[in-house]
């Protein structure tokens, strides 16, 4: 046993980290219910006013849907290209494989601003009009790496023998993919989708450079805050946090189920 003093220090350090991380969120959530026109004390009473105002604010709601739309597009793109790339990297030998592996992972270390500027110049050269789709492309190229790293790690962990077993049992390549590889990587794939979704949802650097006439939620919040921190911003942020937590819980549950690990530890 360590002496009581160092334990107390460890506890207080631990709790201060938690407080540092979550207290601001809590404060924000509390003020979203404050019946006052300003974010700040005193607490004048409980109200749903900001939430109802939020639901009436078309511009804000539209930007939420824009964000969801972009995030879904990004998830689609990164899965469409990331999954085959990961399988190719782990399961096949081809010339230039090492360089391919490094190249597809490069965007993860590139600052978003660089990616954004590069894409902006590219779009301008191609005479492409900026829109939500250009944002999708911009974020998708970067977030594809998340899918590739997650799925490759899972494939390594799985090993080759499960697929080989299926093959020796007479499964053709499509059956191997559909019945063995895909169910095997599904937990990792879902995890990557969730990460991509949440990163895309609040991405601002690439989005700022590539956005057209329509705005995503972070952009709208940014412009609102530049004028004034209304409690409406608190309300929408609180809703986003609740949605994120639900998404993560759902994703964890889904991936546990998929990986064959017990969701609830058996009696």
């Amino acid at each position, binding site marked *: 046993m360590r002496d009581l003093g160092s334990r107390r220090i460890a506890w207080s350090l631990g709790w201060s980290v938690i407080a540092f991380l979550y207290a601001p969120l809590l404060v924000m959530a509390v003020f979203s219910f404050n019946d006052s026109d300003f974010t700040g004390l005193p607490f004048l009473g409980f109200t749903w006013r900001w939430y109802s105002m939020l639901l009436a604010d078309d511009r804000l709601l539209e930007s939420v849907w824009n964000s969801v739309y972009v995030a879904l597009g990004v998830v689609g793109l990164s899965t469409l290209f990331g999954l085959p790339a990961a399988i190719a990297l782990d399961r096949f030998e081809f010339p230039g494989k090492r360089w391919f592996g490094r190249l597809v992972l490069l965007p993860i270390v590139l600052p978003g601003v660089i990616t954004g500027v590069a894409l902006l110049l590219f779009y301008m050269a191609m005479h492409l009009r900026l829109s939500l789709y250009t944002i999708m492309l911009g974020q998708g190229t970067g977030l594809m790496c998340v899918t590739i790293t997650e799925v490759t790690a899972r494939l390594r962990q799985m090993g080759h023998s499960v697929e080989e077993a299926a*093959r020796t*049992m007479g499964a053709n390549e499509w059956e191997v993919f559909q019945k063995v590889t895909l169910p095997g990587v599904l937990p990792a794939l879902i995890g990557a989708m969730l990460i991509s979704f949440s990163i895309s949802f609040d991405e601002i650097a690439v989005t700022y450079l590539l956005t057209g006439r329509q705005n995503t939620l972070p952009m709208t919040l940014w412009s609102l805050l530049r004028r004034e921190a209304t409690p409406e911003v608190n309300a929408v942020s609180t809703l986003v946090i609740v949605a994120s937590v639900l998404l993560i819980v759902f994703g964890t549950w889904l991936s546990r189920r998929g990986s064959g690990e017990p969701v609830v530890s058996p009696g």
Partner: protein
Amino acid sequence: MTAIIEARQLQKHYGGPLAVRDVSFSVTEGEFLSLLGASGSGKTTTLRMIAGLETPTAGSVLFRGQDITHVPAAQRDMRMVFQDFALFPNLTVWNNVAFGLRLKINRGRVTHEEIKTRVGRYLETVMLSGHAQKLPHQLSGGQRQRVSLARALVTDPPVVLFDEPLGSLDASMRKSMQLELKRLHRELRKTFIYVTHDQEEAMGLSDRVAVLQDGCLLQIAPPNDIYFRPNSAEVARFVGAANVLEGIVESKGDGVAVVRLAGNARVEARDNTALAAVGDSVTVMLRAEQLRLSPAAPGTDGFVARVTERLFLGEKVRYELCVHGSNTRLSALDTGDQGGFQLGDDLSVSADPRHVRIIGQSPPQRSAP
């Protein structure tokens, strides 16, 4: 007897030294053949080439006389059991076993009723009927390997390939699985090709053992021959506790060759003496369990050696010996009736000439014919 599988001068090259070089053998219908070797000997690569999971760099694989070297694994009539079981983690035991049959149903070769009866029967064969609805992670290692066994057997393949199937099980589980494999082979009369690095397992289970080293097939023979009549020092060293020693043939006559070892120790050899003439340097094999030990005294048979280590192994005692006047080292196994010797004791060591085998001529000083 017809060969069901034939390997013809199989070669595999990954870059670097050859992983498998010129391995040829044939397996008869219903035979249990073990490929025995240390890691890196090429045994698993050879098995995988037979399965179709690797393409040989050269050579060919024949199935009932037909060349299947370039037939994909999915179209070969073989199943494989893997060391890591390779069960489908997201499928129940039942669905794991039914996997191969369900593929056939898509191609209209099997009915739902058949799947039901066959999966049920094979789960019973491997004593897992009560676990059908469990997922692989809920089973013990031994149970998982029995599932993969049932999964391999359920489609009734003529050939089953095993890649160190018991390698990841603990000792007691391995013993009971060995019995089960032997029973299954006897009952089903299928051809088993079995890769292992455990010589006891290979000899205990198989009809024939193929010993591989550095990608070469050294010897293929029934276990008894591999053990008592190894064709090379490598095989002798790999199989059982053999002392492989260098010596010079001093005299020959009446089927007995007297071989002088280092330190002027002499042994008489009666096995395979035709291989050597007087004056030749030869390699002789003395099996550790066939050495006779007695306290050294004037007039006793054999040569003198000192006990340098004593290991109590339960049913036997292993002595490490050093031959007097040399640094030749020997191992001897005493099953308990030769008395307890202590560290530093001088012993008289002798061997029945029938069990002393001349394996070959020593390479460095090959004498002229």
